[in-house]
C-alpha cells in the first residue's frame, strides 16, 4: 500500500494514475463541499468535474505535498463561488422571494429537520463553519486554505454560529418584518 504522501509526490511529478487515485479518495469530501454551495446534484457534479480538471492542470504547481487536501479543497470552494457569482448575475427579479415563515422550534430534533438553515447562510460563513466543525480544521488551517487572516476566520466563525443560531430560532420572521418597515 503506497502512502498518501508518496502518491502526492508522484502526482506532482506527472503520474496521472496517482492523481486519479488521490482524487478518488477525496471525491466524497469534494462533492459534499460543492453540494453545500450549489444545493443540487447536477451543479455539484459540474463543480466536481471542474475541480478535477483544475487539479490535473495545476498539480505540478503544488509546492508542499502535505497541503494536497487543503489545495484541492480551495480549488473546489473557489470554483463553487465562481459559479454562484456567475449565476447571481442572471437571477430574475420574479424569482426573488422571502423565505417561508418558520415557526419557532422547541426541540433540537425539530430544529434538525431544518437542516437547510446551513444552506441559507452567506458563503463566507458556510465555508468556515463546515471546515471548522465538520472537517475539524484549525483556525490557522482555514486561514491558509481560504487565504485570509486568522482574525477574519475567527470573526466569521463567531458570526456564522450566531446567524445559524438565530435562523434556528425562527429569526426569519423578525428579519422579514424589519425589512418591510
Amino acid at each position, binding site marked *: 500500500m503506497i502512502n498518501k504522501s508518496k502518491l502526492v509526490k508522484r502526482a506532482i511529478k506527472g503520474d496521472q*494514475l496517482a492523481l486519479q487515485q488521490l*482524487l478518488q479518495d477525496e471525491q466524497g469530501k469534494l462533492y459534499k463541499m460543492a453540494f453545500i454551495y450549489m444545493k443540487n446534484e447536477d451543479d455539484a457534479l459540474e463543480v466536481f468535474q471542474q475541480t478535477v480538471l483544475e487539479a490535473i492542470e495545476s498539480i505540478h504547481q503544488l509546492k508542499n505535498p502535505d497541503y494536497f487536501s487543503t489545495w484541492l479543497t480551495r480549488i473546489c470552494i473557489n470554483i463553487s463561488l465562481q459559479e454562484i457569482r456567475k449565476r447571481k448575475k442572471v437571477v430574475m427579479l420574479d424569482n426573488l422571494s422571502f423565505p417561508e415563515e418558520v415557526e419557532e422550534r422547541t426541540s433540537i430534533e425539530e430544529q434538525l429537520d431544518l437542516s437547510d438553515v446551513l444552506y441559507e447562510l452567506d458563503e463566507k460563513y458556510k465555508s468556515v463553519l463546515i471546515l471548522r466543525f*465538520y472537517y475539524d480544521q484549525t483556525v490557522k488551517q482555514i486561514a491558509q486554505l481560504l487565504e485570509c487572516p486568522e482574525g477574519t476566520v475567527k470573526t466569521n466563525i463567531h458570526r456564522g454560529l450566531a446567524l445559524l443560531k438565530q435562523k434556528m430560532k425562527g429569526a426569519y420572521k423578525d428579519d422579514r418584518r424589519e425589512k418591510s418597515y
Partner: protein
Amino acid sequence: MTDEKKVIKKTMDDITVPNQKLENILERTFKKNVGQRYKKRRRTTRYIATAALAILLLSGTVAFNPVMANVLGQIPIIGNVFSYISSATKPEYNKFSQLATPISHTEESNGVIITTDQGVFDGTTITLSVSIQTKENLGDSPMFDSIPTIKDIPLSNGGYNLEKVEGFGYAGIIQLKPQFDESIPENLTVIWNPVAIEGATSERIEGDWNFNFNLEKAQENIQLINKLVSNEGITIHVKETRQTDLTLNIFYQQLVDPNLLNEWTAVEAEMMASDNLGNVYEVPYNGGFADADAQTPEDLQWSATIKDLDPNATKIILHPFATISRLDKEPTSKIVVFDEIEIEL
C-alpha cells in the same frame, strides 16, 4: 456539542454522495472516451477534458510465432528500440528508427538500466523510444511512477507502451503532447526522474534515474489548406497541415451553431484518412482547445497526426466525422458524417 454544530454535522451527513457518478467523471476525465465528456471552462483557453492528460497504458502482451520470435531475437535493443517495436507490433514506427534523433542517455540504479534511445519532436508530439534492462519480472506491462515532463511547458496528454523483451527486459515508446499556449518552440528540454517501476501486481523496483536532454523540432513543410465542410449545424474547417519526414499533422477547427447546443452538450470532431494509393490511416487527435473569444464553448481547435504516411502518396483524403453528445440528463450521442476533404501533398 452545541445545537448549531449538530445542525452543521447533520446537514453534511445528510448529503448523499453519488459515488458511481463521481467515479465515472474521474474515469472520463482521465481517459479518452469520445462522447462522454463534461465541459471545462477556462478564462483564456479551454482544453478538452477527455483529451487532457489521458494516460494511455497499452498492453504489451504479444503472441509471436517462432519465425517472428527468431527475427526479433536478432535485433539488438539498445539503439534499435524503434526498429524492434515496429517489427514486433507497431509498423507505423518503422521510419522512426532511421530518422529520429539519437539520445542514448543511459541511467543505472538498483541494478536496473533505463535508456532513452531516440526521440522525435514533430511540432505537436514528442515521441521517445525507451528500454529497461532488468532480470526482474515485472509482468507484461510495467508502469513507471512518472512520465517525462517538458521544461516550462505543461502537458496536455501523454502515455507509453512497454513490451516485454525476452532475455533483456522491456522496450517501449513514450508519447508526450505539450500544451503550447502561443508559438511552438524550435527545441525543448525533456526532464524525467522516475523513482520506481511497478508491475501489474505487487512487483516494484525503486531507484533513482535522472534524464535531462534537448530535442530539436523536426523540419516541417507547412501547407495552408483552408477548406470547410458542414453538416447538421457543425462546420469543420481544415486550416493547415505540417508535414515532417515522419508525421503529417493536421490542424482543424470545429464551429458549432449555438442552436445545436440547446439540445446537445458536447461536440467532438475527428477524422479518418486515406490516400490515392488506397492506404487507410487512423488520425488520432493530440488535444483541442477553445479560444476565449470563440462563439460557442464547443468551437474547438484541434490537431491530429498521421504517423505512417506512404511516401509514394500524392494525395490524402480526410473523412471527418463528429460525435455530438448530451451529458446532462440521459447521456446519449450520435455521429455526424461530413464530405471528404482532399489535400494534395
